[in-house]
């Protein structure tokens, strides 16, 4: 075996890189490295620009969430606080020519399946996995020159359901008052609650002075330029349970 080893060593010694080959390889390495450095710098610059753009977008989007509603006025008279909240002018882009008839709140409601109305309007609407509804009742549709200007829906009334949801949107064809306001004689709860699935804030109005003592709560939020307004009745007198139910309801919202 020793012979084999020696023969092998001798044979392998013949395999060698010539000086010319070594120089070529070194030159190629340096040349390729310069190209690699240039390419890396370009990629780094692009990544930096992209990162700055994304951060910028994130900041402006976050501002948007906070600025949807502003507390316009808070007054206190004889121990009763009045709060007026106002949303900025929001207009929804939809299929303005959708085949939906004009309707006033005095007319009979038209029942649509969620999927049906979403397809007609070419937009997604917020739903809840908690006590869900397959359908929506349209109770108001205003038009201007045959273009949809305003729409109002509500989740059909059901005594077993703990909430009543209204959906309201106006388009660029709407000529009436464009701001959305709420007015409560009592408390607006803190700074709003985040709806995680929608990345938007919900404002909860309650109708008594102390938090979580009211039997009904008005939850208001805007998602994708559509106003949602929910009256929720927890059907419990326990404050913690009321809070938990409403937080669970907010978590159940999705598009």
């Amino acid at each position: 075996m020793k012979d084999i080893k020696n023969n092998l060593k001798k044979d392998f010694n013949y395999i060698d890189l010539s000086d010319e080959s070594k120089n070529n390889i070194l030159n190629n390495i340096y040349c390729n490295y310069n190209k690699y450095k240039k390419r890396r710098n370009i990629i780094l610059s692009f990544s930096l620009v992209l990162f700055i753009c994304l951060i910028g977008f994130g900041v402006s989007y976050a501002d948007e969430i906070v600025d949807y509603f502003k507390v316009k006025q808070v007054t206190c008279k004889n121990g009763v606080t009045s709060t007026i909240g106002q949303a900025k002018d929001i207009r929804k882009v939809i299929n303005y020519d959708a085949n939906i008839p004009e309707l006033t709140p005095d007319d009979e409601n038209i029942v649509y399946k969620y999927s049906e109305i979403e397809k007609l309007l070419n937009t997604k609407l917020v739903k809840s996995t908690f006590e869900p509804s397959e359908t929506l009742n349209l109770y108001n549709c205003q038009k201007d020159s045959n273009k949809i200007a305003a729409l109002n829906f509500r989740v059909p009334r059901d005594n077993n359901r703990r909430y009543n949801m209204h959906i309201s949107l106006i388009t660029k064809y709407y000529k009436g008052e464009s701001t959305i306001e709420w007015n409560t004689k009592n408390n607006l709860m803190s700074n709003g609650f985040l709806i995680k699935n929608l990345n938007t804030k919900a404002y909860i109005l309650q109708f008594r002075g102390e938090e979580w003592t009211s039997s009904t709560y008005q939850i208001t939020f805007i998602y994708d330029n559509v106003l949602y307004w929910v009256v929720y009745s927890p059907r419990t007198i326990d404050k913690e349970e009321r809070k938990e139910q409403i937080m669970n309801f907010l978590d159940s919202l999705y598009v």
Partner: protein
Amino acid sequence: MKEDFERIFNLYSNDVYRLTYSYLLNKEEAEDIVQKTFFKYFKKYKKLKLNDLEIKKWLFRVAINEAKDYLKSSYISKRAELNENISRKNIASNDIHNILSNMPENYRTIIYLYYYEGYSIKEIAKIERKSESAIKMRLSRGKELLKKEMEV
């Protein structure tokens, strides 16, 4: 700093070349792999905190991986038949080429590392990223093949 790189290049380029040649059995292809291996080293050598012997093992590991990737590429598999005849013209020594060409690829580098570089089975297992028992088995089969070839 470039001097450090060139010192390592001059020290180990022939060893890396012999290793890749034993695997690919083609002079030009082995030179390409040497270039790729040292290019990788050049990108990293400032960060690698290794002594010379560890650097050599690192280079061997990279070279083996590069050679394996090279053989896997569709370009090389398409021209494999054509290369069969050409590669024999590129050899430095017909004896060693003939011996190695009758062995499976994954035995050749082990034979080189064991007999020429004098690495232990444990060290070869680390370089090849295989278990020691797998290296032992390949080495003993390689030895048998080697004996037969050398006796002929």
